[in-house]
């Protein structure tokens, strides 16, 4: 649970929007909150903060689309 919250606050920093915390099921790409650049920042931070390496091509926008989903995917790779 704590890990999930850390991921969500990281996303709030990257997207520069607290809606990520209020609605963790929002589709980040549809809402225009996350783009390719934000995705790279997320991957870099995931490596630096959590020590989780996600290959760029592993990140597909169908499964990594919401804060909750991203937290689940990252937890899987932990």
């Amino acid at each position, binding site marked *: 649970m704590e890990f999930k919250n850390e991921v969500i606050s990281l996303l709030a920093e990257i997207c*520069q929007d607290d809606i990520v915390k209020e609605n963790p099921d929002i589709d980040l790409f549809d809402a225009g909150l996350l*783009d*390719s*650049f934000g*995705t*790279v*920042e997320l*991957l*870099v931070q995931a490596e630096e903060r959590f020590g989780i390496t996600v*290959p*760029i*091509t*592993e990140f597909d926008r169908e499964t990594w689309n919401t804060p909750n989903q991203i937290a689940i995917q990252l937890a899987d790779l932990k």
Partner: protein
Amino acid sequence: MTPYGSFTFFIILAVLLTPTAVMGLMGKRFHTYNMVITVVALGLIFASSLKQAAALSLFTVWQLVIIQSYISYRKKSNSNGVFYGAVILSILPLVLSKLLPYFSEVNFIGFLGISYLTFKGTQLVMETRDGLIKKNPPLSRLLYFILFFPTISSGPIDRYRRFEKDMDLEIQGEQYKLLLYEGINKIFRGFLYKYIIGYSINHYFIANLRFIAHSHLENHLYYMYAYSLYLFFDFAGYSAFAVGVSYIMGIKSPENFNKPFLSRNIKDFWNRWHMSLSFWFRDYVYMRFVFWMTKKKWTKNRNLLSNLGYILLFLLMGVWHGLEMQYIIYGIYHAVLMVAYNSFEQLNKKHKWWPQNKWTNVISIVITFHFICFGFYIFSGQLFHKGA
């Protein structure tokens, strides 16, 4: 024979695909048969030019050797130099085929589809580097992926791991029925787009422009919009054929278009136009470049980094279309638009000049449409030809 270029081609296709459809409806595995018809279809497509057939064979062997050796190497070590070397070797035939015409009369390297097939080879090397492809794939499967005939001439560009999933999927008869319907539906949309709408725009409007337009400016203006529409219907029509035939063969090739003329901005446009190409550049060029620069900490300036990424991406995309002036300028044009839009988007986040509602969306679509059409006008080469 040009793929999807003649009535004969479609008749042959129907004959070749009938057993596929029957097996599919019975819920039987049909990929081995589909591999056989891929060989037949490639034979028909390249029969008219032995030179091209030879170039294709050589290219395929070249890619196979690079991919298989790199996968074997990567199991043991992972040096940067070897990775860069493998990438360079995999794009070398494409580079040579683009440069050669400037030095020699005969181009013995190029063949129909080389630009598209190169993406598949390079992609395999990159995903192996990322540790996503760990085992050497069976040779037949690798060959089938690279040479999959429905998409051989102009894409859509598939991804190996996606393709493999489709190959391993057990399709029940009932599920296949839906795939078959969807495939046939797409093929007929292809007819509508390419041979009815696209053909009409070209044949009745563009070909008669000198009688329709009253001035030089009018001529160019009409051409710009008509050519943009023609390009879309022609290419989206072709893509619908390619995706439709893939579906019938149990492979869900990715889509290439998603209503590109309804884009709200230029970034949105590149998520809707020639998607399999732009996503390739996004994933394998832009994101990798930004990732690498961020890790090296060469700059803290996020906008600069993102803009450099866009410039690199669109210059490469321009050159990939060809080394002619119009393609290079087309690339520069889109790089400039992306950088300008990116800066606007950043400023707008702060100042909220441009709110999001129904009206601003409509205005955004109209503005974006004109910018897109001007891009295609550059792409068409009309600007650089005298006396159009």
